[in-house]
């Protein structure tokens, strides 16, 4: 904030900022934003806290039931599946999201005039809705889709690979699609970070005779460490929340026997429709936000530890 004004004490009502000490004007400016954010985000958040401890349904307010919803989660097989799938998503997707776009950005930052072309091409999937991405990959990964036809042409498989019907193959396919969509996004963030690395460090590495791999590990990676941590946080939160890719690849079913359900899908299923168990869905939402919060804190702590070394 304007340190300049903090330094000089306000002299009555004659500076730009002091005139507004007791006025209503600032609150008029704030009104639309504050109203939306309070009524549509913070109040619903408090309501979720309340719902989680009730047995309310969509058409019935429900009563306080203590920890019943949380107890029920332990016995709910789908909850276990969803938690497992969303967690696997974080574990498998995040390393790729942190490393791969950095390698691409490093390769790209020296590409000169072609950089714009590559950047735009690789960014294209980012601007597409998960539904469209999902439909494109449904076509590609189908039993008779391009991927299977290519594998068949190359005689790599005798039978079509059931990418979209096998529980684990579908999960891994969805992870691949998520990485495919996110690469360009994180790459552009890395490109901005790479531009801030002192070029003389590269010259020094070249003079020491360092090859591309050593230069990457000794100059590039240390230069973007904080960006890597940021992308670690962003991509793990995003991975845990995965919805669109799995929803479309499973055609909204959550896979055979619900084996590919994720946390967000479970909330959507439990909490909507005429039979919606809003209380139970609220409890799952609450668990989910606790996990997301823990993910954030864990990454921040790890980041701090790394710095002390």
């Amino acid at each position: 904030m304007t340190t300049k004004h903090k330094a000089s004490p306000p002299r009555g009502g004659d500076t730009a900022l002091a005139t507004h000490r007791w006025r209503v004007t600032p609150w008029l400016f704030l009104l639309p934003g504050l109203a939306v954010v309070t009524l549509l985000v913070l109040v619903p958040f408090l309501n979720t806290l309340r719902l989680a401890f009730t047995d309310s349904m969509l058409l019935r307010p429900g009563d306080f039931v203590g920890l019943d919803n949380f107890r029920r989660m332990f016995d709910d097989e789908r909850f276990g599946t969803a938690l497992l799938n969303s967690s696997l998503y974080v574990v498998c997707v995040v390393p790729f999201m942190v490393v791969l776009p950095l390698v691409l950005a490093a390769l790209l930052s020296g590409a000169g005039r072609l950089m714009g072309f590559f950047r735009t091409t690789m960014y294209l999937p980012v601007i597409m809705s998960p539904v469209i991405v999902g439909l494109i990959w449904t076509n590609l990964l189908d039993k008779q889709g391009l991927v299977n036809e290519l594998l068949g042409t190359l005689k790599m498989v005798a039978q079509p690979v059931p990418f979209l019907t096998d529980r684990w193959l579908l999960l891994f396919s969805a992870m691949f699609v998520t990485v495919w969509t996110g690469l360009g996004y994180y790459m552009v963030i890395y490109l901005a970070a790479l531009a801030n690395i002192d070029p003389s460090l590269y010259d020094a590495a070249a003079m020491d005779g360092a090859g591309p791999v050593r230069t990457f590990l000794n100059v590039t990676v240390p230069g973007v460490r904080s960006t890597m941590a940021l992308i670690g946080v962003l991509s793990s939160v995003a991975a845990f929340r995965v919805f669109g890719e799995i929803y479309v690849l499973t055609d909204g079913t959550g896979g055979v026997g619900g084996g590919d359900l994720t946390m967000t899908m479970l909330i959507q299923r439990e909490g909507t429709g005429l039979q919606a168990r809003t209380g139970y869905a609220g409890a799952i939402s609450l668990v989910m936000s606790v996990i997301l919060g823990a993910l954030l804190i864990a990454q921040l702590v790890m980041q701090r530890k790394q710095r002390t070394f």
Partner: protein
Amino acid sequence: MPTSAAGRRRVTPGLVGRYLILILMAVLLAGPLIWQLSLSLKGAGDDLYARPPELIPGHPTPANFATVLDRIPVPHYLVNSLMVAAMAVAGNVVGATCAGYALGKLRFRGRGVAAGIFVAALLVPAETVLISQFLLVRGAGLANTLLGVVLPTIVAALNVLLMRNAFANLPAEFDEAAVIDGANAWQRFIRVSVPQVKGVITVVAIFAFVGSWNDFLWPLIVLSDEDNYTLTVGLNRLRGTFYDDPRLIAAGTIIALVPIVTFFAMLQRYFFRGLEAGGLKG
């Protein structure tokens, strides 16, 4: 790695390797789109399952597009999506700019509390409030309406905080001069401050547009009547409707991609500028 001698570089194995990897990645990322385009143009005479697969359609035809438009009201969904996106852009530009100005430029009692409310809202995951938001929107009689779709994100906390930073970084001199000229807060806002943060406002507008255009989960929950479907929710039906014909699914996705790809092509530099600003801040 970038070198100062980039202009005089000779073709080395390293350089070839670099371009090979980049081209491979570009093919991997753009290839599926090109294949989809090819698929959408293939006629009845084309063997979809030829080995090796054929990229260039032997009998190209626009018939698939006609079939999709005939069976699914895509233009209608497009209009719905555009209306939601327009409201999201207007709401975020006006709401975030005003609130950001108050937080970044004006000094008043309670400013810290107000800023804290936006930060708190930023930290609430969308999934946590999904069901409660639905109950609220439903209670207000806005379930199954486009207004209900846009309402929760009509002013996003992130945009307010972006605008606050933009205003706070402006030099104070212009403001002081305007005060001496007797300008009130509103005049200073419109004439002095807003023109200086136009770039950030553009970024907010673009991200509000793309976010709303691509949103799927929330409209899926709010909308129940096909008449009100936005493009993402409507397209979700493609697979069920055309299960047996990948050409029609492909044609549907291509129709849906044209507007957003055009939008991206026109405003590319703002996309990247916005991301870089966001990335640098973190």
